[in-house]
């Protein structure tokens, strides 16, 4: 492979824009999980929630585009698909909340089982509806922000995306503002640090944890739906490819902070984009010495491991993370 191609300007722009897009689904899940974990609930079910959101969102969008209601929703079908993915994610989140908050099931066990449940459920319903694997949806159109998108280089890099990209950036800000500058955010954080003390000050710990878990799962479901409805336009078994688990790792990497989550997700997105691009280049000139694509596909997973090594342990984690709370225990 000719590495000088990698260093060309056009390649870099294509890489960065693809990286930003690929960061979106995982970043949505990371933001959600930050809110959930800040309340003290470790929701390891993200991968299962994302795949259910991905399947639910895709199937909804597909039926609105082609079913008996075709045309009725018009260009809104993708948006409704995203909403359906979010709701599907919240339904899964409710299951996690009942198990971990009300029933005090070990959160690790509940989360891992939820992932397997999500995979089974998503595959079942998808294969039930689609016998062939050719179903596609059209997704959302790119919005070029007037004037700004005309700036050379910068316009191309930052202002020509589909709306979910802008929405996600806004959500990073919103999550930060919510957690650190609103009373509700403060309450959620203190529930995650000192649930018993928070309860004494008149705040319902379990209610707060339910809310945080549902919001988190909704965002993860939205992330999954963004992947299938907006970015790929299709669904496959295991399409989330570990993004839910990577999101769990990125929460640790981001030290439970939305701003750092943006950085982590972008790193992940760039690694993902890089492996796609190098694959595409390698295919053009299948010479000797090209890296096998399997090793390129390993890149995001290796990067995740490195990110975990970089931020070791539970420093900065909410003090009550993963510990069930009993209201009458004091």
């Amino acid at each position, binding site marked *: 492979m000719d590495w000088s191609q990698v260093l060309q300007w056009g390649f870099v722009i294509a890489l960065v824009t693809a990286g930003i897009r690929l960061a979106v689904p995982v970043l949505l899940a990371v933001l959600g999980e930050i809110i959930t974990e800040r309340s003290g609930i470790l929701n*390891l079910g993200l991968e299962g929630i994302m795949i259910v959101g991905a399947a639910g969102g895709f199937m909804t969008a597909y039926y609105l585009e082609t079913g008996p209601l075709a045309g009725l929703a018009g260009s809104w079908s993708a948006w409704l698909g995203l909403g359906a993915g979010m709701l599907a994610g919240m339904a899964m989140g409710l*299951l996690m909340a*009942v*198990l971990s908050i009300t*029933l*005090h*099931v*070990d959160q*690790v*066990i*509940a989360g*891992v*089982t*939820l992932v*397997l*449940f999500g*995979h*089974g*459920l998503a*595959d*079942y319903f998808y*294969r*039930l509806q689609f016998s062939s694997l050719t179903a596609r949806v059209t997704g959302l159109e790119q919005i070029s922000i007037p004037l700004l998108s005309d700036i050379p280089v910068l316009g191309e890099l930052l202002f020509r995306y589909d709306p979910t990209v802008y929405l996600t950036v806004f959500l990073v800000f919103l999550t930060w503002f919510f957690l650190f500058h609103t009373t509700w955010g403060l309450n959620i954080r203190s529930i995650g640090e000192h649930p018993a003390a928070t309860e004494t000050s008149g705040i319902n710990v379990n209610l707060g944890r339910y809310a945080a878990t549902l919001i988190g799962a909704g965002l993860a479901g939205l992330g999954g739906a963004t992947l299938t409805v907006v970015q790929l336009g299709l669904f496959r078994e295991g399409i989330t*490819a*570990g993004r839910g*688990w990577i999101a*769990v*790792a990125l929460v*640790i990497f981001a030290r439970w902070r939305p701003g750092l989550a943006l950085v982590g997700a972008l790193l992940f997105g760039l690694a993902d984009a890089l492996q796609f691009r190098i694959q595409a280049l390698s295919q053009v000139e299948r010479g000797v010495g090209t890296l*096998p694509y*399997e*090793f390129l*596909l*390993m890149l995001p*997973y*290796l990067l*995740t*491991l490195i990110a*975990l*090594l970089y931020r*070791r*342990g*539970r420093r900065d984690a909410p003090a009550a993370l993963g510990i069930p709370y009993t209201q009458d225990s004091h």
Partner: protein
Amino acid sequence: MTQEQTEAINTGQTESRNRALWRALGPPVIGAVIGFVIGALLILMAGANVQEAYTAMLRGAFGGSRQITETVLKAAPLLLVGLGLTVAFRARVWNIGGEGQFFVGALIGAVIALNFPDWPRPLLLSIMLLGGVVGGMLWAMLAGVMKIKWGVSEIISTLMFNYIAILLVQYMARGPLQEPGGYLPQSAQFVPEARLPLLFDSRIHAGVILAVILVAVVYGLLWATPLGFRLRMVGSRSSVARYAGVSVEKSILFVMAFSGGLIGLAGIIEVSTQLTRLKGDISGGFGFAGILVALLGRMHPLGVAIASILFAALIIGSESMHVVSGLPNSLADAIQAVIVLSVLAVDALARRRQK
């Protein structure tokens, strides 16, 4: 002691024994019922006939000696993975990298099988199995070392190692190990000497017997050795264990190695007997289903054995159900997870009522 008192004590004992039995068996039984009820709802949502679908499933899994053989063959790897994970989960080490350890075990075993086809059969088979064990062991210990040295959560690291191992095997199967002159992403077929012997004039192979023997071994390890006692202590209260001088670090490494070894063994057995060659996709999710098997089996070797049969029956039966009713066989995956989720919930409710 009067006779009345003795009787009272005896009835008390039977009562508590009954209660213990109920506590052990109740949740899985209730969980299984809930699992099949929800499965029935999923079948109804698909507009299919529940009775027809479940009958097909039952017949497919247990309808005759051929079906029972298939179920047993599917149960063996589930049992091995479930046993390995039982030891890890007992020490509260969450190895969810079974899938990767299965693949690496199969890979190392396959490399041996493909490179030394002339070795005498007993030697070749033992080295293959050993290679599978060592492969799975080392792959799991990577995550163990990362945990004790750098505090990296084994949950995420073992999961990342899953994806890496699967990609590695996919590369090997279409690259260096591909059948010479072949087009498919798979190795050449193993020589007959590299396949585990079959028993009782059937397709049941020696690996099944090995899995059954390991039920007793794991039971002995957990409840009849000081090591097992220490592991369980690390799992139930690690601070106490530390105080009593048990090295939590060594325990983590041990259970990682042990579980990875058993799972790697499952990998090479599956490849040696069922596929007889290395392929890009060799597992069908044993590493993940094994997690559910360990949980449903209540992390007890006997329970895990029963759970592995049930799950194998679900997997094999769902294939017949797919043919008869046209339902996707991923219904089996959903039912398996619902069963375990229900067991978790029932367990939690039971614990609540006790308080």
